[in-house]
């Protein structure tokens, strides 16, 4: 599955297709030699110390009903959190993403996985996701288009797009 990585902030953000160095491992799978691994919350809770002892970067994948608070205390040890969209209609991960970024200060990679569709990419980006596993034939172009569809945003979110209510007054203060 192509992986999209965004860089830059706000309306200047850009997106590229990148190679994925992370390996997802099942709850009872052996660990690969040295690669960074993504594990379920169950395995993280069970094997936390053993995983950290290998010295490799570790990521945790949360199902959509698993809350940010379940890993909030561990974020210093995690280089990646993957949040699942089991269907695009399940919007819980948007809130989880914002909590991880804004309330718990997570600075690592925040990855959208599952039913990740072009028409939702901008919402996800605004909520703090920076990588996306997306099954789209021309993912980078689709993403670039999604990011460019709007220049006006009404509410602050995790991204650094300045919302219209603030721009109005920045402008009048400068005048």
């Amino acid at each position: 599955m192509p992986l999209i990585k965004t860089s830059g902030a706000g309306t200047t953000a850009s997106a590229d297709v990148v190679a994925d160095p992370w390996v997802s491992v099942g709850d009872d799978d052996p660990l690969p030699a040295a690669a960074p691994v993504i594990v379920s919350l169950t395995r993280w809770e069970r094997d936390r110390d053993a995983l950290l002892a290998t010295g490799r970067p570790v990521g945790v994948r949360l199902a959509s009903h698993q809350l940010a608070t379940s890993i909030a205390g561990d974020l210093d040890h995690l280089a990646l959190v993957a949040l699942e969209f089991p269907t695009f209609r399940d919007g819980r991960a948007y809130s989880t993403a914002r909590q991880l970024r804004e309330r718990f200060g997570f600075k690592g990679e925040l990855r959208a996985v599952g039913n990740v569709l072009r028409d939702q990419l901008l919402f996800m980006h605004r909520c703090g996701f920076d990588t996306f596993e997306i099954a789209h034939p021309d993912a980078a172009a689709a993403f670039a288009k999604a990011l460019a569809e709007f220049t006006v945003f009404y509410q602050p979110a995790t991204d650094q797009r300045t919302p219209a209510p603030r721009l109005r007054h920045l402008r009048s203060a400068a005048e």
Partner: protein
Amino acid sequence: MYRYDEFDHAFVRQRVDQFRDQVSRRLSGELSEDEFKPLRLMNGLYLQLHAYMLRVAIPYGTLSSRQMRCLAHIARTYDKDYGHFTTRQNIQYNWPALKDVPDILMDLAAVEMHALQTSGNCIRNVTADQYAGAAADEIEDPRVWCEIIRQWSSLHPEFSFLPRKFKIAVTGAPNDRAAVAVHDIGLRMVRNEAGEVGFQVLVGGGQGRTPVIGSMIRAFLPKRYLLSYLEAILRVYNLLGRRDNIFKARIKILVQQVGAQVFADMVEDEWQHLKDGPVELPDGELERIQAYFAPPSFEPLPTLHAGFVEAKDRDPAFAAWARSNLADHREPGYAIVNLSLKPVGGVPGDATSAQMDTVADLADRFSLGEIRVSHEQNLILPHVRQKDLHSLWQELTAVGFATANIGLISDIIACPGLDYCSLANARSIPIAQQISTRFAELDRMHDIGELKVKISGCINACGHHHVGHIGILGVDKKGEEFYQITLGGDATETAELGRLVGPALPYDKVADAVETLVDTYLEHRQGGERFLDTYRRVGLQPFKEKLYATH
């Protein structure tokens, strides 16, 4: 009224362009109907029994004459020459072609309107007291906050895929005309002991198959915290609301399940992290929006215009209309005028393009260019000088908008029902027509007094039957249309849910039943009691006995 600035214009245009692209992807087959569905729903486009239906937002029920002319133009150009005003301060067009919808949205954008968030599991078009900015009993104009909520909720990145749709209503007056207690969030502007104005916050109200009166989770929220507090409520709901069962997904079920106090605590906890953060309005923004809702320049007038009083003495039909269709204005010498969209035997809420144009002209001539739409599916001219009332009434009579029945038994709320709606069990509109025909006689209607009849064609309760003084619900009994009757519902500040009187009645017995209920009330009525007052005093029993004795 609020006016779009460059940001608002750009936003709505970009939204139309985005949808135009999505429609062309659908028409070319790149998107399946399944994939297209959530996208069209975010633009108010439904697929109904016979055709697409487009639902256009009338934010907080306020329209300018120019906007009303555009609604008429859309009815004429793209539809069958009429539109339907709904119970949520929207207008619906029942017959647009998919290929025309982007053009319709572009025409709307030119008059600062849209169909955003009139469907889908997002924060829906926010509704308000239809007398906002004009009512004599108002603490503050709630539309300022409705506009702030409208902007904040527009394409909210976090809250566009909620467990279920989400409705917010705001009232600025102690007499609640916006039914805030039966909304996911109801906001009442109140004054605290220090004399400051803030919000009383209710959550978890709603109708549908599980009707609930909202619970108060905060008695007084300072105004400046409104957005952070709303964001906290929505976040708790988005994370914890049920998603496994569409019938249990509304916030009311979550609030019932955890209890209002626990829910309030969860909101409080989340709010501590949002309060005073970037979501609060930046300096100057409240003042900017408030300025648009500054009262128009009213003329200084005497409290009572002598000519108005004389006209009532002279002309009993005018006097009857003035009694039911006017409401008190905050300015001396002005009145709020209700235009009834409930002519005897008509379809509640329907208006033709010619009628819409006429209302626009009347608004320009008599009401400073302003029009309102009520959740009771009527139109309002909010700022009419008393001295103009008699001439306005004559013109309204000529176009069929002067039925003197606001708040009376024939001012019925009815959902589209089986005539349009694919979910219906039974017809609603013909029942409303039968009842209004039965009680057509003006003196009798006025003698009966305030009586709110509300009809839904199925358990989804779009016709608000749970909060009707008399509620009528269409049910299906072995393929036949039957109707359950409830009594004592109330959508105002004394909100209550109606109680079922007894077994459902067949289609052709409903109007008789309503007549029996009304007769029972008249028999028991004391002094100036309304139907609801009598019901509350004597209870269900006398009504039940009469109804099932005669049927």
